[in-house]
């Protein structure tokens, strides 16, 4: 039988606000253990939670970026369970009345089949403490670090709209781009600022059944999410073939072995409205101000790049994916006549170089003005393309303008006909057989001659001038 998968994702995103959700402690979980704590996030007797306005605002902006409707009234519930990572026997989350509902993201895996994937709701919740299990003189001990307790999270719960691992991965990439644009979170699975649980079930192709789902956790990259889903679909199909029922439970992805392993029955504790945290009431005026704070999002920006700068769709997509890079691009093409050239240089040289170095555009000394100056130097034949690439790489590390690097390194292009003529003559004298070949119709030899001349000038010769000289001489 042919099966199709039904996939829904639950995505936790840690908001990068300066403080925690209910207190003024620094939101820096990575600091030395238990330094960012106070009576509120330790839930000491007599402490009262105070919802951070800043968290609420960032969360709302992130929800807007995911095309959600913000609820006029939302409220916190207590998710009751006992575990040492919870300082009070329950986790504050929004179960009954979430912050936002009915969002979506558009993905394009197959250009003939654009897909709009639904987001059921987004709610706010607090993170829990971190547990460390160690041994002390062979006695196992457990330590609790409360730095993370009370850190602000949003949980994005999608509709079960995805049908294969590719769609799930693409959804996550688009989601990451959107949220990064708002500046609310870095959304890094690798660094833990985004955590993804996948709910997967399978059914006969074409059916509208919703079968028992299995939850898979512990994926540390978008690729792992795809791998884990693919594995789980295969595993469930095999279960059905063998007539083994699929039971509701949670599995962990083991990326070494590339398998999922059963962890526990799926936990569901009661969710009781919390009487201590007041309801969040959002009025139209407040919301309008936050909507105004939402930056231009990548899709709109891409369209504008096509219209204003004449980029093609692929170029526009690449230039708009990352907010910082898109802003770099726009500054670099201000008063510059060849925006497509700038886009291609960014895509072909700058982005790969950044990736190699594992850096973002804001972490290097290169400014858009220097980048434009470099392109102009090349446009005016002051340097050739090879030299320009070389200078660009240097500008990633050196806080200097391109003119200075060109001078220091002697990259300035040699277009002086007299100087080049000497070299051309020498090469022709050294290669009489080449001249014969050329004259008998082998045009390829011209490329060889130019290559020799470039080598002789350490890449500084103007290839156009060389070309003309050789043709004249031959």
């Amino acid at each position, binding site marked *: 039988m042919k099966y199709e998968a039904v996939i829904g994702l639950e995505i936790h995103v840690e908001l990068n606000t300066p403080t925690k959700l209910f207190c003024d402690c620094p939101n820096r979980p990575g600091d030395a253990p238990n330094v960012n704590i106070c009576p509120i996030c330790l839930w000491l*007797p007599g402490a*009262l939670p105070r919802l951070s306005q800043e968290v609420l605002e960032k969360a709302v902006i992130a929800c807007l970026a995911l095309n959600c409707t913000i609820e006029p009234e939302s409220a916190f519930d207590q998710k009751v369970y*006992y575990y*040492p990572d919870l300082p009070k*026997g329950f986790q504050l989350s929004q179960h009954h009345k979430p912050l936002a509902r009915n969002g979506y993201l558009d993905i394009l895996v197959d250009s003939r089949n654009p897909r709009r994937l639904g987001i059921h709701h987004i709610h706010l919740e607090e993170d829990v403490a971190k547990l460390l299990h160690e041994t002390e003189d062979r006695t196992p001990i457990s330590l609790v670090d409360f730095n993370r307790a009370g850190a602000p999270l949003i949980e994005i719960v999608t509709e079960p709209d995805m049908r294969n691992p590719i769609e799930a991965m693409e959804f996550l990439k688009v989601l990451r781009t959107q949220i990064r644009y708002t500046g609310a979170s870095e959304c890094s699975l690798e660094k833990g600022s985004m955590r993804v649980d996948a709910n997967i079930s399978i059914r006969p192709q074409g059916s509208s059944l919703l079968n028992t789902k299995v939850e898979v956790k512990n994926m540390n990259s978008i690729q792992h999410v795809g791998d884990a889903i693919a594995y789980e679909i295969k595993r469930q199909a095999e279960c059905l073939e063998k007539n083994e029922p699929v039971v509701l439970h949670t599995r962990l992805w083991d990326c070494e072995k590339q398998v999922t392993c059963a962890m526990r029955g799926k936990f569901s504790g009661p969710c009781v*409205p919390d009487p201590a945290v007041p309801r969040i009431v959002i009025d139209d005026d407040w919301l309008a101000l936050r909507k105004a704070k939402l930056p231009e999002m990548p899709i709109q920006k891409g369209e504008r790049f096509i219209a204003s700068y004449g980029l093609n769709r692929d170029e526009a997509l690449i230039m708009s994916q990352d907010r910082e890079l898109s802003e770099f691009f726009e500054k670099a093409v201000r008063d510059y006549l060849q925006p497509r050239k700038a886009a291609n240089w960014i895509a072909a040289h700058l982005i790969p170089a950044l990736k190699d170095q594992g850096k973002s555009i804001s972490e290097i000394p290169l400014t858009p003005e220097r980048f434009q100056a470099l392109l102009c130097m090349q446009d005016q034949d002051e340097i050739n393309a090879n030299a320009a690439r070389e200078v660009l790489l240097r500008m990633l590390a050196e806080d200097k303008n391109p003119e200075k690097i060109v001078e220091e390194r002697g990259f300035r292009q040699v277009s002086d006909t007299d100087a080049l003529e000497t070299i051309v003559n020498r090469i022709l004298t050294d290669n009489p057989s080449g001249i014969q070949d050329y004259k008998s119709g082998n045009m390829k030899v011209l490329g060889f001659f130019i290559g020799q001349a470039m080598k002789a000038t350490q890449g500084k010769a103007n290839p156009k001038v060389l070309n003309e000289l050789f043709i004249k001489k031959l």
Partner: protein
Amino acid sequence: MNSNIFSFSAEFGTEAGQGGLRVAIQPNMSCRGWPANAGSKALENFIALEDATVIRLLRQAGARIAGSTHMSELGFGLIRNTGSQAVSENLADVALITDNMGEARIAAARAGLPGFKPSYGIVSRLGLIGLIPSMECWGILARKVSDIKSTMAAICVRDEQDFSMTGNTLPDFTISRPFNETLRVIGVAEGYENNLTKAESVSWEKALSALEQAGFKIEKIRLTDAALFSSVHNVIGAVEASSSAGKYDGVRYGHRASNAGNWNEMYLKSRGESFGTLMKAYLFQGAYFQFKNYVAFENACRIRGRLLDETMRAFSQVNWMASLTIRENRDACKASNITDIYKAFSFTAPANITGLPALQVPGIALCGNMDLGLQITGPPLSDRELLAFGAYLGPEKQGGSAK
């Protein structure tokens, strides 16, 4: 220091503001450096790290914290509570007792004193080690209504740290205006008298005729679900208590069982050893509604909303609502199981459910030597007027005819 009454007290000399009100508190009210065990082993040896907002405000107003009385476990009920003795024996002018279901009013009524529960959300709860967040408040017991008023004048101040405070303008207790005598209509729940014992009926009749003699008009008010107040309080109170007490796990403070094999065992043992029988029963009830009968909890929340609506409607017809404060043969200080507690507190719990201000007035609802207390409940934020009413009804005014 009288250790029968105070579990801890500071030397008076160390407290500023000589000559101000002497205030007795309980060990669930945070007073920096003082034990704050809330009457429970679950908070064994816990010392308050900060002053509660109320403590800070009292001191600012020149009051002295006289000492910390004994209290019931986590402030539920009145077993072992010595707040009223501190006032009766003149060790304090005012005693603060957390009022979850009427503790302050009932302790006052039993001692023949005035006792007050303010409107929900007009006094900061920061630093109060509470149990039922949607109902609890700082209750006040004193020898004179005027001392209650002075206390409220000191502590009814907006606190930006307590987000559960009302957004409305707070009552101004510094105004000294006499009782507004146009507020003369007092509501009584229809059928209230049917469930009274003989002695209760006598007291009630006496209170009503005293009010009528003083020129008040009594009106019957229909409260269809009045019989459900106690059940609603029980279900919601137990659920909230179960959540509030969830933090007492022995991980960060309080009692931790010594010989546990793993952390689940540590939880079970620590919590098992920490709580007394009554508290355990209450927390079990709460967990039952959370895990096994959530529908009952949802129903209780719905009924609470209806009760609140009905009560508010009543206040469109009357200025005040009246009842007795305590029951004749239900000793709130000895009630040691949940059924008995809810019976003993059945007249006072409604104000905790609705969040309305309520005042226990002594010397009016009498049957022989027995004073069952007259409880007046006012509309939201009528606290100042209610205390003015209490002063108006006070012994200096009514004493002659009532006694």
